[in-house]
């Protein structure tokens, strides 16, 4: 095959061109993933107030609503944050679905003999499934604690009461634990992987990536699970 001048592709706006490529979609996965990481970390830290007192926790929930109030109208900042998170989630899930479809096409026939994976660990191979579990859980979590539309709650329950109702129910607590384990696997691969996707490669920090992924996962998932366990064992009541 003769070497020719590289094709000059037709130019679209750079965002469009970037997104059209799978590499660009991975940038979207990584950037929206980073937004998600910021969220799950802040969410865990905020919830540590469960250990202070019911009043502190309820006050924290209330303060979120009044962030920057009275500079901004009540609820505005919270809703802006929600908007960013929803956009990030939609971007993350859509890109994941498109990439998954592309990868299925690229390997239409699987090996008939059993694969012996050396490097691709369980977390990496289950990103799609842990992602879907987290997504389903997210809807349950909102219905449960934000909208309080599940039968576990009564009118007039404070946010703190709802947390107790939810975690004292074995099925609900089980789902919280399962979803956090799934998120843990997702983060363990995701935090490591995003450096590659973002093209961040440097001898100085490459060997810290795994450490960072483990530390991040342990802190966030450890914190989240501790709340459920604390309620189940009566430390929080």
């Amino acid at each position, binding site marked *: *095959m*003769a*070497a*020719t*001048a*590289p*094709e*000059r*592709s037709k*130019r*679209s*706006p*750079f965002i469009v*061109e*970037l997104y059209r*490529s*799978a*590499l*660009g*979609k*991975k*940038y979207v996965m990584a950037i929206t993933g980073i937004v998600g990481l910021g969220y799950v970390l802040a969410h865990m830290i905020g919830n540590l107030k469960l250990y202070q007192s019911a009043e502190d926790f309820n006050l924290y929930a209330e303060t979120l609503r009044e962030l920057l109030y009275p500079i901004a109208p009540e609820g505005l900042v919270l809703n802006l944050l929600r908007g960013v998170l929803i956009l990030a989630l939609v971007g993350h899930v859509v890109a994941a679905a498109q*990439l998954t479809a*592309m*990868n299925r*096409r*690229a*390997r*239409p*026939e*699987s*090996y*008939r*003999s*059993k*694969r*012996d*994976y*050396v*490097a*691709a660990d369980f977390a*990496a*191979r289950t*990103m799609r499934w842990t992602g879907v579990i987290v997504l389903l859980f997210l809807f349950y979590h909102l219905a449960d604690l934000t909208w309080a539309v599940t039968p576990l709650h009564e009118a007039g329950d404070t946010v703190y009461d709802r947390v107790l109702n939810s975690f004292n129910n074995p099925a609900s607590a089980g789902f919280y634990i399962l979803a956090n384990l799934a998120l843990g696997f997702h983060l363990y*691969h995701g935090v*490591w*992987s995003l*450096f*590659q*996707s*973002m*093209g*961040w*490669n440097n001898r100085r920090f*490459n060997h810290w990536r795994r450490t960072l992924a483990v530390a991040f996962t342990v802190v966030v998932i450890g914190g989240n699970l501790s709340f459920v366990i604390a309620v189940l064992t009566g430390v929080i009541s």
Partner: protein
Amino acid sequence: MRLTLEVWRQADAATPGRFERYEVDGVTAEVSMLELLDILNAQLVAEGREPVAFDHDCREGICGTCGIMVNGQPHGPEDHTPACLQRVRAFSDGDVVTLEPWRAGAFPVLRDLVVDRSALDRIIASGGYISTATNAAPEALSLPVNKHQSEAAMDHAACIGCGACVAACPNGAAQLFAGAKVAHLAELPQGQVERYERVRSMVATMESEFGSCTNYGECVPACPAAIGLDVIAHLNRDFRTAVVSERRGEVPERTDVRWLARLRGEAWWQSDPDDRPGDTPKRS
């Protein structure tokens, strides 16, 4: 030693294949994966049966022609070693060894263990030429190259194009291969002229036939040239630079932002006629 081989047999691309079981006796430890197939084929020919088709050429790890899935591992159980240099000493008497062709949408099976890997050539071809002085040999040392960069370029250029990375990847992605090719030229002064056009074009070709990278890393132990995942980060970074910086005019060719230039009223001074949308001030 005595080995049982489960070998994928397929008459041609259109016919469905299946595994067939063969017994091979008297195999010694230093026999290579390919010689194992030679022994089997000698046996099959003696019995008047069709020998197993498989790709091979140099048999010393430099050409990249060999490639088979051995017990679910590309090239075989040893890391960073092509099939021709892998010895059967990894197995013991009585073992069952499964030999399967590499599977990827971009690598159709042609016959038995032979797949068509020309999709990799299409990635290379779309990278195009590099602009450099030819004719007379250049004066030695006329083009200084940083030592670390030349080492890195040599390391990335070690790719033999075997396709084990694609075979190893659950996504059928060719990022390690394309990354190695992009990185080795991007490290050198000769590679700079077409650097960003090249990465764009190679990525487009790659993505039209292969999958996308999920950073499994499964390609790395499979790679005979020990190419590392850093080339994939390199590929991503160069691609981003090509697409994003071009918009800022930091990379020479750019025509997509003419409307922006026109808004700013600056296009008339561009030297590229394509960038002058007819609003050049006229002498009266």
